C-alpha cells in the first residue's frame, strides 16, 4: 500500500535521499525484524513531508542528536500527533546523517487493518517496554511522549504547561544506558484548539479524549483541521543518567523532574522568542 503511495506521489528527492541513507540493520530483502522497509517508508515519508511543510517548522539544535541509541523526549500538544510527525520528519530530513526516529504506537493501532501495516513498514512499533528495550539495544532512536494523552489532549487554559511525565522512559534510559534528548515543540498547541474535553464522546468512541474547538459551532467539523501555525522545534543537549533502573519511584522521579524542567525551560524560551503564532 505504501509502495503504491510512494509511486503515486510526485518525486521528492529530499525524502528519497534521506530514506536511502538511513543506517539500519536490515536483511537481504531490505526488511528489519519489526517490518521497516525503505521503499515502503518513502510513501509515508513523502506524505509526512507535505504535512511538515504545512507547518513550516524552524528546527534548532538538531546537531544535538547523538549517534546510536537515543530517547527523543518532546512535550506533547495539539490534540493530534502532528508534533510527533514534525519531530520525526526533522530527524529524518535535517539530521546529518538522517535518523529514523521510531514512534511507539498505541496498542490499539496494531489491531487495525492497514494501519498496523503502514506503521510497521514506516518504522513505528507497538509501544511495549520490551520492544522499546530491544530497539534501544539495537542502537535505534525512539520518540517518547512521557506526558502521554494527558499532554496532547489538554485544553487551552493549560497550553504549554507540561503535564506530569511517566517514569517508564527514565527506567528504560537507565537500564539501556541511553541518553535522553529533550525537545521543545512550540506552535503545535495552537494548531487544533480545544476548550473542552467531551468525556461522553471519548467514552463512546474509546478514545483517550475528545477535543471541542471554540469555533466548532461556527465551522462544524472543519474546526478539526489543523491551523497552519508555524512550529518551532528545539533539540536540547543530550542528558546522561546513571543509577539503578529498578530504584524506588522517588529516586526515578528526581531524574524525570530534571528532564521535565529542561523541556519546560526550552518551551518557555521558545515562546519568548516567538513573534507570532503564524510567523
Amino acid at each position, binding site marked *: 500500500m505504501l509502495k503504491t503511495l510512494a509511486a503515486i506521489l510526485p518525486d521528492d528527492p529530499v525524502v528519497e535521499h534521506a530514506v536511502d541513507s538511513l543506517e539500519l540493520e536490515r536483511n537481504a530483502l531490505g*526488511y528489519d525484524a519489526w517490518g521497516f522497509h525503505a521503499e515502503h517508508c518513502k510513501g509515508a515519508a513523502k506524505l509526512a513531508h507535505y504535512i511538515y511543510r504545512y507547518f513550516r517548522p524552524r528546527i534548532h539544535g538538531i546537531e544535538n542528536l547523538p549517534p546510536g541509541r537515543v530517547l527523543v523526549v518532546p512535550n506533547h500538544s495539539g490534540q493530534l500527533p502532528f508534533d510527533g510527525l514534525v519531530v520525526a520528519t526533522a530527524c529524518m530530513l535535517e539530521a546529518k546523517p538522517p535518523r529514523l526516529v521510531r514512534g511507539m504506537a498505541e496498542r490499539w493501532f496494531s489491531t487495525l487493518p492497514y494501519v498496523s501495516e503502514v506503521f510497521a513498514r514506516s518504522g513505528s512499533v507497538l509501544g511495549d517496554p520490551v520492544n522499546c528495550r530491544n530497539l534501544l539495544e539495537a542502537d535505534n532512536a525512539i520518540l517518547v511522549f512521557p506526558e502521554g494523552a494527558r499532554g496532547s489532549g489538554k485544553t487551552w487554559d493549560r497550553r504549554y504547561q507540561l503535564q506530569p511525565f511517566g517514569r517508564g522512559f527514565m527506567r528504560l534510559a537507565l537500564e539501556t544506558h541511553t541518553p535522553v534528548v529533550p525537545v521543545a515543540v512550540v506552535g503545535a498547541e495552537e494548531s487544533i484548539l480545544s476548550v473542552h474535553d467531551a468525556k461522553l464522546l471519548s467514552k463512546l468512541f474509546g478514545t483517550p479524549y475528545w477535543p471541542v474547538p471554540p469555533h466548532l459551532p461556527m465551522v462544524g467539523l472543519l474546526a478539526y483541521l489543523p491551523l497552519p501555525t508555524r512550529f518551532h522545534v528545539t533539540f536540547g543537549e543530550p542528558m546522561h543518567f546513571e543509577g539503578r533502573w529498578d530504584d524506588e519511584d522517588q529516586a526515578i522521579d528526581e531524574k524525570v523532574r530534571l528532564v521535565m524542567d529542561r523541556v519546560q525551560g526550552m518551551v518557555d524560551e521558545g515562546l519568548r522568542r516567538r513573534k507570532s503564532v503564524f510567523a
Partner: protein
Amino acid sequence: MDREVALVTGIAGGLAGQVAHALHDRGYHVVGVDYRALPSASALPEGTTLVRAHYNKTGIEDVFRRHRPSLVLHLGRVGNLKEQLEKRFELNVIGGQKITALCLKYGVRRLVVLSTFHIYGADPMNHTPISEDDPLRAGTEFPEIADAIQLDNHAVNTLYRYPQMQTVVLRPCNVVGPGIQNAMSRFLRQPRVPVMMGFDPMVQLVHERDLISAILAVAGGTAIGVFNVAGKSALPWSAVVDMTGAGRVPVPSSVAFAYLRVASLFTSTLPPYLVNFIKHPCVISDEAFRRTFGWAPQVDEVETVRSTVGG
C-alpha cells in the same frame, strides 16, 4: 564395541528420516518409532530398527528396554489437526510424559524435545523479538493448541527437575522444505495463497536442512535449556507468497477463520490458529541458541521458500 543407540520418534515424518541418516553417519544405531504406518526400510539408513508403537502404550517401553538408547530425539509431536483432540492429547501429552518417564527410568543421557513456536501465539500485542522467557499466549484464543503447550511445559519441567538427564527443548519457527509435509509447507504449495486483507506481519521460516543441523548440534552437545530456532530472517507474509510464485488471494481474516473452522471438521487442512500467524506478528529470537551451540542457518530466505514449493 556396541554402537550408541539413538531413539527417534516421528520416524514416518520427513524431518525424522533425514535426522536418522545424519545420526547413522555419526555412528549411531538408530531406532525409529512412530504411531503411524512406518516408512519403507529402504528410505532409512541400513541397520535402522523400525518399531510401530503408540507413545502412550506399553509398546514404547519395550523399545526402551530392548535397545537402551542413550540419546532420545522426541520429534514426533502431532501437530496435525486431522487427529482428534483426544488423540492428540494422548499422543502429545500422555505420550510425552511416558517418553520422559522412560528416559529417566532407563538412564537416557540426553533428551531432545521438538516443540514449536506456535505456542507463543501470533498476537497484535506481541513485542519483537520473542525470547524463550516470554508468555505462551496461543491458548487464550485457540484452546485446541493446549496439548502442544502442555507437551512443552512438561519437557521444560523435566529439564529442571531431573538434572541427571540432559534435556533440551527446541521451539522452531515454521519448518518448511521439500521433504516436509506439515500444514505450512502444504499451504505454501497451493496454486493461490491467501493473504489477510489489511495485515501483513513478519513471518519466519526455517529450512529443514537448517533445523536438522540444529537438532544434530544439540544431539552432539552437552548444554541444556529451552531454545527458539529461527531461520535466516523475518519477512512479510506477502513477500513469502510472492517468492512461491503463487498468486496472492486477499481474504478478510474473519472469512478465513470461519472457513477453516468449518473445513477442519471434515478435512485435514490448515489449523485455524495458523491464520493468526499470517495476520499478526510472532517473531522469535534464536540468539541464545546460536550462542550456546554455535549454530547458524545456512539456507537463505529465497531458497527456503523456493525449495519448499519445488520452484
